[in-house]
């Protein structure tokens, strides 16, 4: 009956066996489009020439793709006695090395190996399918990809190819449909319609002939599942089509594949030729009476042609435009005849079901979503690639385990599934199972398998804009809502990203989005608003930041951001301006640019957590510019030549404003008010001015003299500072209300938090804030012996490093409930502490204090482990039962933070919360009482120095409005520098050698002798060189470009 086929099958099995018999080395090179673009053809050539050079009889096979894009080009090598070893990140040299070491020498190149495959182990190389990227994968559809030559039907036959079709011919069409029904297979193109049901409709539909179409018009940005499958195992798709055609009673199958997939088309064409030669299709196949033929139709690349009715229109030679359904193609499709359109992966799954049985297929996945599904896992993920997982796996497992987590090691902000038709799912919902219904409930769709991971460097407005841009470009223009709606959505989103959006626009986005979703003609239009609708649903705050505060938290939207460093600086320091001055060697001008708005540059240059550097664009490809070190250089230079912020021409004579607290927030507000002509008076409860930085930041980080000099300069600008006066106690509220036009409460958070354990009052236990203050003020706090510090913030590390510098201290151990990764202390500080010999006891939380006779003996600790992330994105510590332990200590410093004590504000009529925080509006800093404002740590609890200064800056602006009787309202504008300075032109040599400089520091053990400042400043040469490295993002906005052009020509 089918001697031709049986002969082919017999020969195929022999050939396959021989290929793997170990008599000659076998080298499989992943040469799909993805591999080729990464250089696989070079690698292939290197394997060929190198084995030839060494006179080896190697069999070198071009295969499809194994999946791990991050490790392309990939090759697998089988040379006895070792098992098949998979190598990644290859190039010519590495290929040559593998030939020499592994093929010739029998020693696999361990450092290049991704893993071994199959039976047997090679020394130190893990089983590939047990490595994190593969462990959760179940490779069925992709099972052959990367292992067979897609252009040799024998490789497919030897691996079970077409056995499913033969089985189908035996079963007959009805039982084939029954088998598909039993398998629970749902359409893999996106909508998830039960495959058997669609087939049933078509088989029962009147009309002849019937047509089958394989939809290979994969068009989602970032999706490449179908391409990979067609390039890796085209026979599985052809087999699936034969089975489907047989079940439907169709006589012709068309593969609609986009012309942008030349290699897939080439391999399909080759595969079809071989299948025909083997008698697998044509007239009366194997004497069954079933006639079937294939056609390939190359699509021109319109996204909408993935929509089945548009696809049909395209095959018919018309414009690729959808038509309203019903009628559904199963009743009236191609040329008006009953037609089934199945996705590539659906058809490949059909082949597998008929080969292995419905039960086998349904053994993976969930009740509603059976089997496995391929995904293109891309975006900000460590291990992007093509993966195949059982349905029902969680997004978290997909991203964190298979994908290795966010690329930058940060938090996964959102994941987009289903391409432009899908929606984003926020990081908090990563436990959503990947199945049709769950993704839909979360506002997205399964789609054909695109999965784009986003982290904190993705702006969700920009994300929505990107997909809308795609949708409006791909809209066919047929129906009004999609044609016009997608364009309007895009335009509004563009306005929002340019700072021209309003709060009303967000409502408009929702309304138009809903209108398009409900009214558009086809699937493309109906789903096109999904990205913006889901982004609005899950990230309303980010949209609000754009339209109201003109802020892009991810620092992506150029026209809002200008330069990310300035944009993310809470006080808007014009970093690009002073960096440009430094780059030109104008150090004084640089200092002036810094100190115009910031009266405490030397302090900031030492203790600020420099958010500016976190978003620096130079950091995307190398190291961020050392912005803080540059500021320090300018400030130190200014100090060395006696420069100070220029005092005003005349001392201010305007209304008086009282400020409580001389910390960064109070000083900033006072300075700004004085600049506006007010006469501010700052009342400080402590004996020295400066607040937390003066009291708690150790001398080795922030020398007193430096801070005092800056405070002195502030005074010389017309600010009066009265120390030793506690508002509410030494100075009643009434007196302030009488004599001052307004009052700003910036009293910080100085009340130490307590552990709440019995024995906390024992001798030897001390709060870290008091400890740091006593040391700073030259007192002897009596800390000695073995010192423990509880906490993971800066105060904890400061306390530990300070203690380590004191006489009589033997050892210092930081006890923290999470791990080093989650510590909120600056990374540099933690590293320095470790360097200085400070020990860390991570995942430990004190559960009791041992004291004998009122004297500390040690702490009992409970052991923790990390659970799932909390709101801050850090993994939450969870207690581990029965692993308590004890640490013997002589002193214990409790550094778990400080709280505000704002009760005095009650004297002004402000209702202070039980937590001691003074409630005030987060934007205007106005309290419920007119003329009384509050900001900084007193309101928020301990935050950073720069955030406190930002509050002071804004409060001054608002107080000015209040006093002048204007509405108390913040006004926001997109970020811009005050001047566009031309960029430095780097020489080639400079460009090549550019690297972030390291600030010098006092070497160990010298620095432990006292409290001398550890970190030094940059040399002038280093500073100028570093400033020249700046990419000058501030010059990329439209207005900057225009200004520079005008300057050039005018």
């Amino acid at each position: 009956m089918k001697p031709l086929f049986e002969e082919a099958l017999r020969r195929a099995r022999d050939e396959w066996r021989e290929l793997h018999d170990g008599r000659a080395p076998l080298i499989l090179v992943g040469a799909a489009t993805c591999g080729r673009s990464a250089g696989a053809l070079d690698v292939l050539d290197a394997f060929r020439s190198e084995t030839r050079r060494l006179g080896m009889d190697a069999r070198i096979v071009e295969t499809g793709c194994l999946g791990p894009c991050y490790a392309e080009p990939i090759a697998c090598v089988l040379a006895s006695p070792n098992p098949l070893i998979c190598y990644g990140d290859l190039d010519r040299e590495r290929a040559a090395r593998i030939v020499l070491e592994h093929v010739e020498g029998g020693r696999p190149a361990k450092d290049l190996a991704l893993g071994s495959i199959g039976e047997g182990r090679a020394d130190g190389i893990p089983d590939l399918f047990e490595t994190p990227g593969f462990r959760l994968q179940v490779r069925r559809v992709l099972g052959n990809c990367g292992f067979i030559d897609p252009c040799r039907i024998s490789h497919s036959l030897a691996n079970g190819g077409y056995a499913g079709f033969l089985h189908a011919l035996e079963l007959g069409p009805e039982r084939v449909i029954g088998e598909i029904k039993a398998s629970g297979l749902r359409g893999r193109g996106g909508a998830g319609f039960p495959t058997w049901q669609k087939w049933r409709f078509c088989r029962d539909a009147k009309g002849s002939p019937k047509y089958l179409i394989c939809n290979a018009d994969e068009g989602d940005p970032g999706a490449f599942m179908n391409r990979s499958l067609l390039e890796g195992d085209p026979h599985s798709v052809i087999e699936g089509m034969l089975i489907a055609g047989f079940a439907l009673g169709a006589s012709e199958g068309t593969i609609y594949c986009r012309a942008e997939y030349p290699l897939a088309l080439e391999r399909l064409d080759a595969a079809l030729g071989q299948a025909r030669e083997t008698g697998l299709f044509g007239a009366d196949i194997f004497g069954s009476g079933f006639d079937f033929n294939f056609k390939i139709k190359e699509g021109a690349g319109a996204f909408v042609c993935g929509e089945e009715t548009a696809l049909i229109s395209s095959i018919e030679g018309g414009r690729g435009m959808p038509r309203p359904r019903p009628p559904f193609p199963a009743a009236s499709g191609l040329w008006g005849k009953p037609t089934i359109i199945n996705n590539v992966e659906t058809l490949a799954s059909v082949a597998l079901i008929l080969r292995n049985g419905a039960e086998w297929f349904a053994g993976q996945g969930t009740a509603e979503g059976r089997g496995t599904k391929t995904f293109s896992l891309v975006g900000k993920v460590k291990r992007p690639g093509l993966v195949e997982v059982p349905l029902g796996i969680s997004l978290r497992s997909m991203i964190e385990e298979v994908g290795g987590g966010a690329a930058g090691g940060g938090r996964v902000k959102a994941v987009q599934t289903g391409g432009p038709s899908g929606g984003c799912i926020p990081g908090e919902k990563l436990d959503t199972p990947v199945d049709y219904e769950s993704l839909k409930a979360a506002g997205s769709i399964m789609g054909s398998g695109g999965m784009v991971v986003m982290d904190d460097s993705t702006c969700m407005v920009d994300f929505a804009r990107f997909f809308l841009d795609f949708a409006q470009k791909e809209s066919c223009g047929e129906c009004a809502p999609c044609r016009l709606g997608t364009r309007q959505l895009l335009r509004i989103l563009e306005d929002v990203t340019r700072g021209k959006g309003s709060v009303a626009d967000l409502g408009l986005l929702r309304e138009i989005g809903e209108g398009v979703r409900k009214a558009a003609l086809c699937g493309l239009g109906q789903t096109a608003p999904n990205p913006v609708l889901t982004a609005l649903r899950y990230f309303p705050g980010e949209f609000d930041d754009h339209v109201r505060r003109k802020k892009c938290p991810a620092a992506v939207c150029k026209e809002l951001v200008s330069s990310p460093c300035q944009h993310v600086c809470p006080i808007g320091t014009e970093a690009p301006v002073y960096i440009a001055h430094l780059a030109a060697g104008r150090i004084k001008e640089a200092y002036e640019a810094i100190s115009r708005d910031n009266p405490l540059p030397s302090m900031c240059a030492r203790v600020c957590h420099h958010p500016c550097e976190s978003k620096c664009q130079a950091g995307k490809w190398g190291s961020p510019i050392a912005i803080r070190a540059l500021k320090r250089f300018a400030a130190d230079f200014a100090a060395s030549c006696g420069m100070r912020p220029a005092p005003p021409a005349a001392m201010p004579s305007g209304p008086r404003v009282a400020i409580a607290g001389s910390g960064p927030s109070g000083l900033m507000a006072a300075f700004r008010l004085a600049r506006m002509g007010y006469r501010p008076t700052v009342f400080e409860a402590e004996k020295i001015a400066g607040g937390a930085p003066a009291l708690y930041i150790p001398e080795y980080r922030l020398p007193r003299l430096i801070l005092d000099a800056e405070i002195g300069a502030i005074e010389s600008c017309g600010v009066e500072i009265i120390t030793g006066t506690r508002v509410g106690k030494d100075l009643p509220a009434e007196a302030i209300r009488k004599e001052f036009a307004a009052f700003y409460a910036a009293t910080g958070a100085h009340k130490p938090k307590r552990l709440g354990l019995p024995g906390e009052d024992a001798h030897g236990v001390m709060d870290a804030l008091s400890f740091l203050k006593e040391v700073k003020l030259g007192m002897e706090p009596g800390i000695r012996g073995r010192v423990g510090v509880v906490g993971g913030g800066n105060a904890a590390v400061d306390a530990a490093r300070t203690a380590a510098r004191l006489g009589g201290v033997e050892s210092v151990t930081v006890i923290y409930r999470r791990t080093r990764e989650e510590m909120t202390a600056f990374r540099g500080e933690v590293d320095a502490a470790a360097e200085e010999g400070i020990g860390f006891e991570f995942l430990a939380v004190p559960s009791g204090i041992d004291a004998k006779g009122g004297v500390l003996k040690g702490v009992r600790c409970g052991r923790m482990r990390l659970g799932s992330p909390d709101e801050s994105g850090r993994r939450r510590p969870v207690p581990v039962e029965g692993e308590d332990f004890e640490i013997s200590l002589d002193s214990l410093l409790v550094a778990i933070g400080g709280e505000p004590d704002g009760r005095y504000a009650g004297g002004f009529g402000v209702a202070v919360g039980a937590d001691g925080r003074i409630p005030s509006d987060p934007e205007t800093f106005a309290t419920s009482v007119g003329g009384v404002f509050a900001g900084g740590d007193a309101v928020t609890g301990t935050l950073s120095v720069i955030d406190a200064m930002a509050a002071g800056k804004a409060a001054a602006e608002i107080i000015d409005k209040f006093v002048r009787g204007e509405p108390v309202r913040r006004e926001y504008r997109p970020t811009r520098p005050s001047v566009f300075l031309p960029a430095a032109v780097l020489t080639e040599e400079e460009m090549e050698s550019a690297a972030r400089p390291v600030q010098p520091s006092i070497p160990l053990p010298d620095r432990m002798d006292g409290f001398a400042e550890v970190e030094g400043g940059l040399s002038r040469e280093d500073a100028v060189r570093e400033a020249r490295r700046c990419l000058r993002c501030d010059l990329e906005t439209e207005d900057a470009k225009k200004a520079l052009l005008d300057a050039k020509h005018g």
Partner: protein
Amino acid sequence: MDDRPPAKRIRLTIDSASIEAAEGSTVLAAALENGIYVPHLCHHPDLEPAGVCRLCLVDLAGKGIVVSCKTPVAEGMAVRTETPEIASIRRVIIELLLANHPWDCLSCGRNTDCKLQQAARHAGVDESRLKRLRRTDRVLPLDRSNPFFTRDPNKCVLCGVCVRTCASIQGTGAIDFIRRGFDTAVGTLGGKPIAESSCESCGECAARCPTGALSIKESEVPAREVKTVCPYCGCGCGVVLGVRMDRIVGVRGDRENPVNRGRLCVKGRFGHAFVRHKDRLRMPLLKRNGKFEEISWDDALDAAAAGFGMRRGDAFALLASAKSANEDAYAAQKFARSVMGSNNVDHCARL
């Protein structure tokens, strides 16, 4: 005439009205026939429905929102033409359409006779939102190449009525959609002016255009209409003349006339300028001494009869006008053969 058996009647409810419609009819057609307005742009009773303007959304009990122009009527169907959800979607679509539409209604030839205006009035438009959506970044050039009508793509809502008319009613296919997405337009092969395309200037498209995108040049609003028969060829198409004082200001096809059912060709629709042309013959002329002189009808008939009498037989030839009806043509050839004794009979064959 239509000799198909009368279609089965289907009963359904639209809003609170219980109505009947022919089987196979759509919900939209049934509603409109029964005087229930559902906003629409791409629907035209002469054409297959396209379902692209998406304005005619209705709520079907048990099925939710569907486009009524693509939904066949069914027995017992309960249709609501407006719900808060539909109203909001419709308003969005109308606002999207108007945002890119010229705001010159008062000077537009279709003012008060515009389906977009009608739909907008029905849907209700929020002026402030419309201003926000207003984009004037695209002004497309007008195509005035055709002597009878102007194409203004800025007023086009891409309903496709013209394209479908040209293809399925006129059978010409001179125009189709070109480009994609927001840039989609109705255009000719190679983007040439319409006058250089295969367009026959029948004006069927302009007659069906729901907006001012296709407007007849030199058209005035008639004061009254006069039903008559087209004077051109012998087909006898029914026309309705738009008349102002004693001037013809426009012609439209008579939909009730069984000959043309409302359709006209370029001559019937646009060829009426001759009526008032200065060269038009209003009285018979007789050439005397090499000069034409006006004479009375009686004198003219006498002169003709005298001439005929002298030229019987092969000396006589009859050339009939293509404007003659079949009956007139028959009588004329009969006259030539039996009275004049000549077989020299012909016909001008074109106009």
